[in-house]
Structure formats: structure tokens, C-alpha cells
């Protein structure tokens, strides 16, 4: 019975994959070209890299909601973990070589994150990539026993987690003065985008680190 079900699922997936391929192969050329529209507006976007321009300016509203999605993911994990046993977990017993390496790498990772954030204005990079590097540093510190897992974040940490969203939101609403949500005045667009990206880097870095560190506390209890 179970293997028949499995076979049916596999067949369904194959049919879907086949249909998708057939559909994509016969795609007609689109008569709208968004890349052209993006290129035409790059001069007033405040940045030089099209991906950053789309993420933070043309479709900045999507990114605003997406930041809320990430915070929500952390909230969801917090709700599930909080219900379980609460144990203090100081991380693994430190291997001295690993600990020394982590101590050596962390400042470099922070530097790399800063560079990625800055680079986002004119080449691939930006807040999300920088935040991932920061989160990586936090995970490394935890694994080498130099940073405890999180059980319930204190006020300062909560401020760090939600700060990026709040600053982004306050700017979006403040720009209603220009006539619409997130309508940057072109001469300040670059500076405002950098401000948003900088605060997002810290908040997203903490959120991504939290996704690991909150579950790490749970694992220590099991």
C-alpha cells in the first residue's frame, strides 16, 4: 500500500517536471522587458548595481515585508523552543585550537561583512550577504564554546533583532512626505539605502544567528 502511494507520488512529480520542461521550452518571448526598465531608471536609483536597486528601491516594499518574514521565522522557533525544557548551554567544551581559530576569524568575518555591505552599492553584495557572514561568525563562536545559546533574548538583543525592521518601516512611513511609501528623493536615495542596509545587516545577522542559537539551546537540553 505504502509503496503504491510512493510510486504514485513519484509518477505525479515526474509528470509535473515533464510538463514544466515542455512549457518552459515553448515559452514565447515576453513583450514586456523589466530589465530594460530597470536599466533606464538606474541613474535615479541611488545605487549602481541593478540587484540592489530592485531590492531596496524599485521593489523595496517586498524587501520590507521579507524582513518581517525573517523576524517571524525566529518568533516561530522561539514559540516552539520556549515550550520545551530550558537549559543553559554554554556551547561545546572548547577545543583550544578551534577556539583560537574562531577568535582569529571573527574580526575578519566582521570586516568581510562590512565590505559586502559597502560593495552592494556597485557590485554583487549587500545586507543579506553581509548578514549571512555575521551569522556565520556567531555560529562559529558558539561551536567553539565562546558564545552561549539563546534561551529568551533580553531587551538589548530584542532591540537588535527588531531594529532593522523598525528603522526600515519608519523610513518607509517618513517618506510618505514625498508622496508615497518608500519614495526616496533621488539626491538622498543612496544615503538612505545605505542607512537601511546597514541596520538590516545587524538585525538580519542577529536573526540568522538566532535561528541557529535558539535551536542550539534546545539541543543541549535533549
Amino acid at each position: 500500500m505504502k509503496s503504491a502511494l510512493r510510486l504514485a507520488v513519484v509518477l505525479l512529480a515526474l509528470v509535473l517536471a515533464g510538463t514544466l520542461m515542455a512549457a518552459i521550452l515553448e515559452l514565447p518571448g515576453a513583450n514586456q522587458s523589466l530589465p530594460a526598465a530597470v536599466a533606464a531608471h538606474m541613474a535615479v536609483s541611488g545605487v549602481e548595481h541593478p540587484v540592489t536597486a530592485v531590492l531596496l528601491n524599485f521593489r523595496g516594499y517586498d524587501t520590507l515585508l521579507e524582513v518581517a518574514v525573517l523576524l517571524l521565522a525566529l518568533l516561530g522557533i522561539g514559540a516552539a523552543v520556549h515550550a520545551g525544557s530550558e537549559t543553559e548551554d554554554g556551547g561545546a567544551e572548547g577545543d583550544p585550537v578551534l577556539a583560537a581559530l574562531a577568535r582569529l576569524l571573527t574580526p575578519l568575518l566582521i570586516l568581510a561583512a562590512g565590505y559586502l555591505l559597502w560593495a552592494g552599492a556597485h557590485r554583487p553584495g549587500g545586507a543579506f550577504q553581509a548578514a549571512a557572514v555575521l551569522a556565520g561568525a556567531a555560529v562559529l563562536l558558539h561551536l567553539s564554546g565562546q558564545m552561549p545559546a539563546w534561551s529568551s533574548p533580553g531587551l538589548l538583543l530584542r532591540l537588535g533583532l527588531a531594529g532593522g525592521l523598525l528603522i526600515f518601516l519608519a523610513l518607509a512611513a517618513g517618506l510618505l512626505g514625498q508622496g508615497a511609501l518608500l519614495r526616496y528623493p533621488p539626491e538622498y536615495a543612496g544615503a538612505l539605502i545605505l542607512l537601511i542596509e546597514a541596520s538590516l545587516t545587524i538585525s538580519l545577522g542577529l536573526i540568522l544567528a538566532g535561528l541557529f542559537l535558539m535551536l542550539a539551546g534546545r539541543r543541549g537540553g535533549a
Partner: protein
Amino acid sequence: MTDAFLDPLPWLIVLPLAWAAMAFLMGAGRGARLAIVALAMQLFLALILATQVLESGPVTHVVGGWGAPLGIDLLADGLSVAMLLLTQAVALPLAVYAQAYFSREAGQFWPLAGFLLAALNALFLSADLFNLYVTLELLSLAAVGLVALGGKPAQVAAALRYLLVSLTASGAYLMGVALIYGVYGTVSIATLAPLMGSAPPMALWLSAGLMLTGLLAKTALFPFHFWLPPAHGGAAAPVSALLSALVVKASFYLVLRLALDVFPNLTALVAPGLGLLGAAAILYGSWRALRTHHIKRLVAWSTVAQLGYLFLVFPLLAPDGLALQAGVVQAIAHGLAKAAMFAAVGVLMLATGRDTLEGLAGVAHRVPLTLFAFGLAGVTLMGLPPSAGFLAKWLLIDAALSHGQWGWVAVVIGGGLLAAAYVFKVLRQAFLLAPEDSRFQPVPRSMEWAAFVLAAASVVLGLRGVELMALLAQGAP
């Protein structure tokens, strides 16, 4: 251009996001009063927006000032505003209810609820297929977090099942959006509408199918209903109320929006199938509601049944707008009534300390106001006059008769009778005398009144149908 600050439309999204983030900052269990004040403001904003739409037609807000297709446009037409009004009208009494229900053990309820409401408002206002995906994602994650809130193993299991269904469904929707972008190079609904020719390529068929399947799974239409009873039946009472009243309506709204504005040519082909699934949902859901002894499961199965009515609308969609009106009135009537019913059941369970039908004996004497609220909500679900549920079924029967499709009439009437059977099953038990050894816990009055206000609204709305019809006539330009 500073009058953009006074525009209610963007604030309906900014305000709930702001109070959700603030409630998170304030820490676990805090933020109830902030939420109630903000929700009162949101209701006021939605009413202003409704008068604007009534007076001068649909309102747009061009985010970033770029304009579709480069940027993202927000659009409030009659359909959007009706759903926005329902959302704020259900959320405000439920917030008052939840403040008393959770007292100090709310955990992350307030930030999660704030993000949920922000997602709903953003979804109803969005006119961009990809932005709609982002709002769906926000909505699903908030809803899953709320289901898991109590942290009991059954709740976490229900939340995980809900999460898996919801993520798969979101993935299917997103794949559909990607195909549409591949064919037409845009995801703005207004830009897409004129491009939809009468001979769509295969990719468009596939895209419509994927998006529809994803959204049906999220709406829990039979046979995708399996995740709903454990999730809605096992969550905390205010959470069940929010999920049953609003969250499943959001994906229904999206099916309706796509059918009307994006795929008008393909809708006629799947419409009879949707109607049949709706009819099956009504019969199967009602039957399961009749069979269960767990009072909250009964209400959750009733949601499965009531969602079926929403899909009877599709085979009857016509330029006369009758079926559309019926669908929206049903969504609103069921939203208010089901929120009231879950709220009332929450009070009954707190008062008796039991969760079975047998445990209800005697509640008629102890918490009469709550039982009255349950009964009023039942009146709407059965579709008795003068409730909004009656108005919805009347419009639906009217639409079916004008198309000469008699079968749907039988389903509507049969569903009403089944609803009466399960509502009276609860009421009969409530009027029995309580056993000698039963104990009743006192329940905060604000919870009883919140349930009553919601139930009364679901009945009284039937008398204000004219305004609602005028609002719905304000279609997209």
C-alpha cells in the same frame, strides 16, 4: 504632496507592522493594550478608506513612486475594502477577548497576531502577483507560529503539518508566478490583464493550475481540508478564531481575485469542478461536525463545511455580480460568526474545564450571554433571516436560479439543515441540568461581551446589505 500622510491606505499596512515589532520589543506576554488601541485606529482607517472608495471609486497607492510594472502598486477596490473591513472588525473584539484569555501567559501572541494582521491587510491591498506571494508567506508563518503557541505536543504537531502544507502550497503559487513572468515579463495584475489573449500558451495553463492548487490547499477546500481540524481545533481560542475567520478567507480572496482579474478566460473551465468540491466540502464537513464529541473540533469541521459555500460561487460567476456578492457576503458572515463561535467555545471550555459536548450540561444557566452568542452565530451559519448568512444564501440561490442550475440550490438548503443539526446538538446539551458534582469557573466579562459583539455583528450585517453591495460594485478600473 504632504497629504499622503493622511492617506489611510499605506497606514493599514504600516500600523500593524509597527505594533507587531513594538510588541516584540516589549517582551513576551506584553503588548495587549498597544494592540487594542492600534486595532481601533485600523478599524477607523478601514472605514475612511471605505467611504473614499464608495465616493470616488478604487484608490491606488504607488509605492516608491515608480508605478507598475517597475515598482509595486497597491489597490483598494470594493472587494479589497470589504475584506479589510471584515479583518479589522473581527480583530478588534478578538484582541479584547485575547487580553483577558491569556492574562499573563500570552507568550509571543501579540507580535504574531500583529504580523498576521499586517499580512492580511497587505494581501488585500496588493495588486502584484509576486508581492502577493510575499504577503502569503508572511501570513502562513504568522499563522503557523500562532498554532504552535501553546507548545503542547499536539499543537506543535498540528503546526508542523500546517507548515508543510502551507510551504508546499506557497511553492506551487510561486512556480505559477515565475511562469507568468516568463511568458509576459511582468507580475503586475493591471499590466497583465490586457495581455491575456484568448489563446494562452501551455505555460499559462500550467501556471494557473499551480497557483490554483496552492491556494486551494491553503483555503482547506475539500479534499485539502485534512490539516485544518487539528490546527484550528487544537490552538488557543483567540488563535482558532483568527485562523478560521480570516486566514482561510485570504487565500479564497486570492482565488477570486485571480479568477476575475488574471485568468478570466480559464476560469469557466475549472468553475464546475470548484463548485463540486465546494458541495462535497459542505456535506462532508457538516457530517464530520455532527459526528464529533469534541466541541472545538465540531466548530473546526463546521469551518470546513462553510468554506464550501465560498466555492459554489465560481460556477455562477456572471456579469450581473450576484454570485460575487454572495461569495463576499458569505466570507464576511462566516468570518464574524465563526470568530464569535470559537470565542464562545473558549469561554465555555474555561467555565466548565472540559472540552467535550457532554461537559456542556448546565452552561445555559451559568454563562447565558456566551451561549446566546453561540446561538446567534449559529443562526448565521444556518442561514436564518435576518442574518448575513441568510443574505449570502439568498444571493447564492438567486444566482443559481437565474442560471437555471437547480442542483446548487439543493446543496445550499441541505447544508443549512446540516448546520442546524450540529448547532442544535450543542444547544440541547447546554440546556441540560448540570450534574451535582460539576464545578464552574468564573470567566472575565470582557470575553463574554467580545463573543457577543461578534455574533451580533454577524446577524445585524444582514440588515446593512445595501451598503455592502454598493461597495462591491466599485470594481477595479
